[in-house]
């Protein structure tokens, strides 16, 4: 064989191998169509969490029984990698037919025309609360159906016995009382806090509480052109209040921040008397710690205004525009969003319903009594807004909060830093 021909063949073989390696189709993502028997195959992705996976499996099984011509291939991924896995599959134009999205991620996809619009958007959106819907809406059109109301505000875990030991026979009913309780409930040994009176120092709650305290003063934290506004007197008062709880009142500290355990874990271990956290932590207490000597109660408003709050849009489902079976995929997510099925999903996953008719159903409250404080304030929730990079946003608030609380930075400087870095980041995503 002539040498140049040999080289050509060798080069072609290498290229073919490289191409095969880069583009080999896998069962995940995109490989979906009706097979010769007329059966519809749909690929469905979600993140991994035992209760959520179990709830999806139950509804998939029910759907497949009702639709024997449809097969749903359900694949799950650890939360830490799920967002990037999803992004990679959409960039490679091989996304799953149906994907579970966290509401805050959706605008990036809908803006790039990667998701299917939900039919009859105008009427469907009336069935949901505003906060869980915000992320799924674009130009007044709906690009997914939220399954839960992601609420971190309005409720806290308390140990009634610890309150009783200090002579408190009811939960705090206003902010002054809350601070007073917190100070008396804090237990110290050799200047180290052993039991925190009021713990809110978690990656989510610092930001959510800060934003809500601004809203509860009747102000807004969103400025113009997608920017945040943290140089208002209300923002300064909100941040000063939170910083003061750590720096002056010393009812919480930064020692457990950034560790592996959640603030709710420390609560269930008896290391805090009151912990500001979402109702989803109730399940952790009951299932992981097998404790029931706690209650989930309302957190009073910071002002005389109602306890309005900011919330992200939580987990929901959307259909990929690349799906070859868009109608079947839409049918599946509409099936999950039906009252009966979504009620089951919310109950099994211990999540707060995004759909009004479920949240307002007395039967749901009867079956989930711990959710009472959260269910009572759902209408007061306001969508957090078009945050381009959620992790970056929360990190800026958390990092600067730590510097302010440890006295390394003034509140004014901290707020200026947060505003500047977040707005720069927002501009980069326009």
């Amino acid at each position, binding site marked *: 064989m002539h*040498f140049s021909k*040999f*080289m050509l063949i*060798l*080069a072609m073989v*290498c290229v073919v191998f*490289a191409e095969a390696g880069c583009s080999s189709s896998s069962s995940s993502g995109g490989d979906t169509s009706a097979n010769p028997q007329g059966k519809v195959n749909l690929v469905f992705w979600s993140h991994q969490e035992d209760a959520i996976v179990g709830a999806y499996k139950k509804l998939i099984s029910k759907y497949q029984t009702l639709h024997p011509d449809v097969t749903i291939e359900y694949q799950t991924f650890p939360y830490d990698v799920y*967002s*990037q896995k999803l*992004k*990679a599959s*959409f*960039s490679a134009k091989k996304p799953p037919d149906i994907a579970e999205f966290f509401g805050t991620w959706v605008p*990036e*996809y809908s803006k*790039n025309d*990667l998701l299917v619009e939900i039919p009859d958007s105008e009427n469907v959106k009336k069935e949901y609360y505003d906060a869980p819907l915000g992320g799924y809406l674009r130009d007044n059109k709906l690009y997914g159906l939220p399954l839960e109301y992601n609420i971190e505000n309005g409720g806290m875990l308390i140990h009634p016995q610890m309150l009783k030991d200090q002579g408190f026979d009811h939960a705090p009913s206003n902010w002054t009382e809350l601070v007073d309780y917190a100070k008396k409930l804090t237990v110290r040994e050799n200047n180290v806090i052993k039991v925190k009176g009021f713990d809110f120092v978690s990656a989510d709650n610092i930001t959510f509480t800060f934003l809500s305290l601004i809203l509860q003063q009747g102000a807004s934290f969103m400025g113009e052109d997608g920017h945040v506004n943290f140089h208002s007197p209300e923002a300064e008062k909100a941040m000063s209040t939170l910083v003061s709880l750590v720096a002056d009142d010393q009812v919480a500290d*930064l*020692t*457990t*921040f*950034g*560790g*592996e*355990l959640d603030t709710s874990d420390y609560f269930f271990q008896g290391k805090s008397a009151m912990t500001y956290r979402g109702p989803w932590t109730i399940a952790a207490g009951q299932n992981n710690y097998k404790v029931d000597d706690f209650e989930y109660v309302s957190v009073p408003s910071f002002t005389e205004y109602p306890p309005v709050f900011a919330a992200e849009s939580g987990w929901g489902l959307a259909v990929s525009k690349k799906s070859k079976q868009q109608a079947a995929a839409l049918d599946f997510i509409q099936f999950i969003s039906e009252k009966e099925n979504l009620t089951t999903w919310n109950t099994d996953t211990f999540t707060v319903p995004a759909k009004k008719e479920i949240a307002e159903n007395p039967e749901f409250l009867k079956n989930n009594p711990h959710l009472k404080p959260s269910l009572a304030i759902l209408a007061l929730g306001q969508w957090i807004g078009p945050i381009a*990079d959620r*992790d*970056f946003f929360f*990190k800026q608030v958390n*990092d600067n909060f*730590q*510097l302010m609380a440890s006295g390394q930075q003034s509140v004014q400087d901290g707020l200026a830093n947060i505003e500047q*870095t977040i707005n720069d*980041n927002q501009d*980069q*995503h326009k």
Partner: protein
Amino acid sequence: MSTAISTNKADKVNPAVKSTAYRAKRRFIIISLVPILLLFGVFAFLPIAWSLGLSAFKYDPLSSNAIFVGAENYIRMFQDSIFLKSLWVTFKFVFIAVLINIVITLLIASAIQRVRIPWLKNGFRTVFFLPTIAPLAGTAIVWNTMFNYNDGLFNMILAKVNMAPIQWLSDPHYALYSVIMMTLWADIGYNIVLFIAGLDSIPDMYYEAATLEGAGRWHVFLHITLPLLRRTLLFVSITTVVSYFQAFPQFQIMTKGGPFNETRVLSLQIYEQAFSSSNMGYASAMATVFLMIILLVTLLQLRWGRTQWEH
């Protein structure tokens, strides 16, 4: 002598046969090199070139459009306080970790090299090399548990000696040093093995001469071992510096760049900009600058560590 004979024989070979032999030799070399060159081309040079091109664009992988921004990404970089911080943290990490690594590994290698019982010497070499076998990600997870504030091994030891517990990974004063500690534990095996090989290759006659001259141990180490180990030292320092510049899994797993970006090395910042924030163009610009920095540092090391002798 033998060279002259072969030259004479070669002179007698027909020029046509000589040319065929030369072509065959050249063909063999090319065939041998093509696969590896293709591999490098597709998986190393092409991505570098691609990244270089991408650095002039604003590109979100979910979008079908890439906007040409010219040098904007580079200009932005030098006004970006987080990038500048990550650059500083990277240099700090590399400088401290490489320095400690080389000092420790050289000391351990010298100690092991003095062991005269072969099985014991091999045993020591194996023990120190063992941590390098474990994947860095796994090692980072295990060390994470040891750094735990509440029930980690290190705070348990501190408690035994009546010392206050430390926030190993979330206190800005300790976080970077904690990661350095873990990195050194996981990585010193390679350099110990390399240094032992380098020390073994130094002829005994120099030491014998020094002993006869009455030189002390420190004098011998400073004036014989170190100069004759210079080539090994150069190789070890270059590979360690390059590898530490690229350190990523331990930071991603143990601290995620926190607290307050005190452990945000450049590789982590590039990764987060590219895959979490979807700023592929900006991440590419940072990667280009990073490549230039590593290249420059390596060239400087090569220049400063150049030797003209052989033993």
